[in-house]
């Protein structure tokens, strides 16, 4: 009987020790969310994390699955020179709803949105972060969120607006209308403009400041055809000439922290051994096509759109000769060898602001002022000025010139051409001759089938 008691007592002891035994501490490679948003330093790291991840995210990294590549193919800037079916589908505007590049583009964009929402949620509940820091970080998160939605709405049309981190709700989100998406973008950007200051963080142009938010706001207003606001905000950026100038030397535009840049992403975001931009790696031909590492080249249309004396043709376009033919490639980024970081991925730069203002002013009937802006860009390219050659140019002709100048200036950057063709309503006119199976429904990319399968409330775009 004595044993019985001993056994019972020992069982009890064992049981209580079991309870304690299985609790383990937070491992050293994780930091819990509450701790992240308990002080300025780690909260700031969470935002730095967003900028780092932007250089890794497929949609924004400038690599094969990025807006730069895929929207570049959808428009008439880039063409495929190697057998890569996922890319060919974009190039032919015949994207399958199962295209994996399309899924990655979409998914990576929403992943960045999640990070932004997580920072916003975390900071809202945080008590340890100083108000000043909290406001700045929240404004930056809202800026990045607006930036991502800008591309989503332009590539896919109506998209679900995700503004929380609650997956139970978000998993069943349905698509919001395009005006609703723009409303959020403008709201986010306005609040960023209101809160952010004009300084560069550590002298680097890698984080959003007041002008970065203004520049994107100007672009957004241009896209929703609010010409006054587009002019107002581009004006403010251009007027800040202490911070931003058009560089005379075209070879310096894409360098680290160039004075023309409004916002750049650093290759360091990919990790410590990363020194070059993806654009330099995938555009600059190092062996003759077909070559799977550099599977695209510039189209003949864009090459033919340049005058011979245009400096951009000389400095921003490279040529690779083979026995039978010459291939042209974007050469804005020039450093494709390892070493140290000399170039950042350019997201927004001053030249675009001039072109935004030129277009807004032309639309508002301020033709003379518009010509001044356009000539800024033409002058740098060593082209004849409109003010000399056609000072009395009409509104439509001027808008046409601006549109062409945008293409020559901004080609192979962030899908500008594809977005411009769509917003100005000339995509069908321009592309139907060039793409054999062009349909009007090709203006929007398909919502990835995987996403529709996982979320019964998501609908597909027409034509897919």
């Amino acid at each position, binding site marked *: 009987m004595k044993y019985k008691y001993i056994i019972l007592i020992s069982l009890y002891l064992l049981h209580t020790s079991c309870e304690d035994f299985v609790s383990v501490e937070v491992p050293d490679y994780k*930091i819990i969310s509450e701790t992240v948003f308990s002080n300025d330093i780690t909260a700031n790291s969470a935002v730095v994390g967003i900028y780092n991840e932007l250089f890794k995210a497929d949609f924004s990294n400038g690599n094969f699955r990025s807006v730069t590549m895929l929207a570049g193919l959808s428009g008439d800037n880039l063409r495929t020179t190697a057998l890569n079916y996922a890319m*060919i589908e974009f190039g032919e505007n015949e994207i399958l709803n199962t295209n994996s590049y399309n899924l990655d583009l979409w998914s990576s964009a929403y992943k960045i949105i999640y990070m932004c929402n997580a920072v916003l949620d975390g900071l809202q509940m945080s008590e340890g972060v100083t108000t000043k820091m909290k406001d700045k970080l929240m404004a930056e998160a809202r800026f990045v969120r607006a930036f991502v939605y800008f591309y989503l709405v332009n590539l896919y049309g109506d998209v679900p607006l995700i503004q929380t981190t609650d997956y139970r709700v978000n998993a069943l989100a349905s698509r919001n209308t395009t005006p609703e998406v723009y409303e959020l973008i403008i709201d986010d950007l306005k609040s960023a403009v209101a809160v952010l200051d004009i300084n560069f963080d550590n002298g680097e142009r890698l984080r959003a400041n007041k002008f970065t938010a203004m520049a994107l706001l100007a672009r957004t207003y241009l896209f929703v055809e609010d010409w006054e606001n587009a002019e107002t905000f581009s004006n403010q950026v251009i007027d800040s000439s202490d911070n931003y100038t058009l560089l005379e030397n075209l070879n310096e535009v894409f360098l680290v922290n160039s004075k023309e840049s409004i916002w750049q992403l650093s290759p360091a975001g990919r990790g410590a051994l990363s020194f070059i931009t993806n654009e330099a790696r995938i555009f600059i031909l190092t062996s003759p096509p077909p070559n799977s590492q550099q599977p695209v080249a510039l189209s003949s249309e864009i090459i033919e759109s340049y005058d011979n004396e245009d400096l951009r043709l000389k400095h921003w376009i490279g040529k690779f000769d083979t026995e039978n033919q010459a291939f042209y490639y974007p050469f804005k980024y020039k450093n494709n060898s390892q070493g140290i970081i000399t170039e950042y991925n350019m997201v927004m730069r001053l030249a675009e602001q001039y072109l935004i203002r030129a277009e807004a002013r032309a639309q508002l009937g301020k033709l003379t002022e518009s010509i001044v802006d356009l000539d800024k860009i033409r002058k740098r390219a060593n082209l004849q000025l409109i003010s000399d050659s056609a000072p009395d140019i009409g509104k439509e002709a001027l808008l046409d010139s601006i549109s062409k100048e945008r293409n020559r200036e901004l080609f192979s950057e962030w899908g500008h051409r594809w977005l411009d063709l769509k917003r100005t309503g000339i995509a069908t006119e321009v592309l139907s001759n060039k793409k054999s199976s062009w349909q009007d429904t090709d203006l929007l990319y398909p919502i990835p089938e995987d996403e529709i399968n996982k979320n019964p409330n998501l609908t597909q775009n027409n034509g897919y």
Partner: protein
Amino acid sequence: MTKNHNLCRRRRIYACCLFFLSLSLTLSAQDLLVSGQVTDGQLPISGANVIIKNTNMGVVSDFDGRYTITAKPTDSLQISYLGYTTLTIPIHNRSTINIIMYEDATALGEVQINAGYYTTTDREKTGSIARITAKDIEGLPIVSPLEALQGRMAGVEVEQSSGIAGLAPSIRIRGTNSLRNDGNYPLFIVNGVPLNSEPLNSVGQLTSLSGLDPLSTIDPNNIESIEVLKDADATAIYGSRGANGVVLITTKKRRSMDKKTSLSINILSGVSEVANKVKLLNTPQYISMRKKAFENDGATPTQATAPDLMLWDQNQYTDWQEVLFGGTALMKNINIGLSGGNEYTSYLIGGSYHNQGSVFPDNFNYNKLTANFNLNHRSKDDKFLLDLSVNYGVDDNSLFFGNNFVNSALTTPPNAPAIYKEDGSLNWDNWVGNNPLAVLEQPQDIKTDNLLANMGLSYKILKGLNLKANLGYSKLNSEEQIRFFKEANRPSRWDYIKLNAIQSQTYRQSWIAEPQITYDMVEGKVEINTLVGATFQDNKNSYFAVEGSGYADKSLMGNLGAADDVRVLTDDNIHYRYSALFGRFGLNIDKKYFLNITGRRDGSSRFGPDKRFSNFWALGGAWIFSKEKVIREHISFLSFGKLRGSYGTTGSDQIGDYGYLDAYETTDGPGGLYPTQLFNPDYSWEINKKLETAIQLGFLKDRINLEVSWYKNSSSNQLVGYPLPAITGFTSVQANLPALVQNTGWEVQLSSINFTNRDFSWQTTLNMTFPDNKLVAFDNIDQTSYTNRYKVGYPLNIRKLYQYDGIDPETGFYRVVDINEDGRYNNDDRVVIKNMGRQYYGGVSNHFQYKGLSLQFLFEYIKQNNLGYIFSATPPGFLGNKPVEFLYAWKNPGDSEHIQKVSQSFSALVSSSNASNSSISIEDASFLRLKNISLSYQLPQDILEKLKLTSAKVFVSAQNLLTITKYGGLDPQGGSRAVPPLRTITCGIQVNL
């Protein structure tokens, strides 16, 4: 504070252990001298082992078959002799027991079966336990012990689909229970020590999918037995870890009790090659297909779209299958064991070496060295027992970083440029993309060492009352290095390339302590066996990966000091703790009625603080009805009859660690943090309920034995990485799902002695399994992301497919049905459902013996579907070689061909992609395979005496010699894109001195 807390916790554990030890008081008992003679009915048997059951105490019968042993009056004697059925005889206070042994005709004997914390026999078991022993495993040219189970056990599916040594085979016991792929690993226990059954991480493309085998460092030839526990009765004592079944591996101990030191040597050597190749187009056929494609499309080939027509030699021909996986792999295996001892202490010390080449180009090798040590000791008063096992293994696998060559072999155009230049370097001229052998310039080396140590202690306190402790320690260290030489790239890129190398290390360390008390008693016809124990287990797993770049020279690669830049890719440290209380109550009356109750309370650190503990239990019973007088008298041909059944619950905690934490990790870029997962603090244990009934019958004095079981396992509260649309930021979250997965099935095991006399015997064993897997319930599945993958009422392993509609008579392209006529093809149109799991499977093994000559062969049969071979290729006309079937493509309206028109157009790709997701893409991939055949010869006694050997055997065997299937691809099991299982022929010799 926490430190203090830890200290308290440890003190309590020590206190518990001390308590157990303090029970080891000196107690006495009345011993009895038992003696007798062992015979086969006529002649004495010398050298038979007479052991006291459940101990290591025993003696060996002398030349006249006589023995004498000291035992308790209530003990049972267990008598065994090679080739004879092992007997268990209760002493019942007798001092003289003469024993008659019968030749071992069947497997259904009184052989002790390891049930984990206790042992049982096939006759008395209340649960479902399958077993293979050393004689099934020895001589097989395998690397992973699990491969020995293939075709030999009902209810156990083992697949090694890669043909590459050192990779983890997949194993499923009674089907798929969890919706999570990585939630279906069984529990591995090696000599009582649980081993993390999750495959090891690997960065390499060849190895990352299946992972590395955590059991690879165990020498299969050193395994005494492998038991697989299947039903609730057998697995519930493992509680939360038993849901997917338990695999118990026991390594060899010294068998004989005599004092002679003996040495055994096994030598095995063999050759392997890929068992099957497929027929592809030759160069003229290929070129004409490609030209036809452009002609049909009205397109002009360019260098970009048709390098094969515009750039390459139109007459060159290479058989890429021969070049890329047509090699012959050599295999060698040597295993040596030395054992000896006396009546109190025995030891076995052994070692092995295994070397295996590969069928790929270049000299890739797999090497394995193992050492093992076992020590058994009992005190003179028989109260104290010790059993120590130490196994240590090192393996070294050299591979390359790249996909296996199968895809290249099947798709590289037959007129592609030469692989090498005349000077022996890789040729890059005209290759589009990469030269397929460029990956050889990216060597991947994996070195693993694994120590497993276990000590079992037992002390008899009182008659029937034993105090036991099972202590285990395991340590596994696996290092992988991948070096990217610049030669893997075309020379024009060399200037842009920095030499880099990735190194990674997986480290797993665990200890386990399991104090136990057992109490056994016999009171008249009633026998009771009880067991109470506790488990404390601590696992530390870490994974560290680092990339170094900018090495000045190849020879320095891997030395981080020589790298210009070093980047840490991963540095994860996971701590997993597990504790449990468990118990068993076994009762039998007159060895006729059996009852077994097991229970366990488990706690696991993988769950949030409020969800850590859960209870599991099972009830099993058996009735040996053949012992009833009425049966014995009326059904004389029935020599054995048993009904058994069990019901109980088990669980699973096989989910990632720390999933309940809302946590951030550092970004690859400097100074950043980012959220790496969605978190859910509320998920809890998955519950698996198992029901089983079975009947075991023996006919004609047990010459024919039949066991038929039916089981039903229901897994509810499914713990899954619940797939989410990417708009949530992630593609999954850990959660319990309101889904019920049910596995039911019939298992049949039959063994029969078809013929036997003094010189010749023929035995057949057969197993068949008819599994049925079904998703029984899933509330609102159409509201979840699972609606595409699963369908209620169907198995988990299905494909939802379009309805194939033949070839369009106008375009010549495949057509599928747009069911809802909405003009698009999506999930709503996927109305055809095909089961991709096994419909039934089994194995038949025959064993013929004539004097010393023995012939065994094992056939494995599986009825299943697989993705058709035709649709694993791009459509006819596209760049890349194609199956010869594509010669018969559709040409004109009215054609009845089954292959669409030759074309390289985009619409051809779209229609082919739709067809590959339609009903036509699934083929019958059932097969009958001669898994193993072996012929051996046991040298006769007179020669052995001359050679001064105890025994000697020579043998020759073949694996995967023959596969009969209708499937068109490389292998019905692996499909069209995996290295098919190798055909291996080996010969060997086993000698005992």
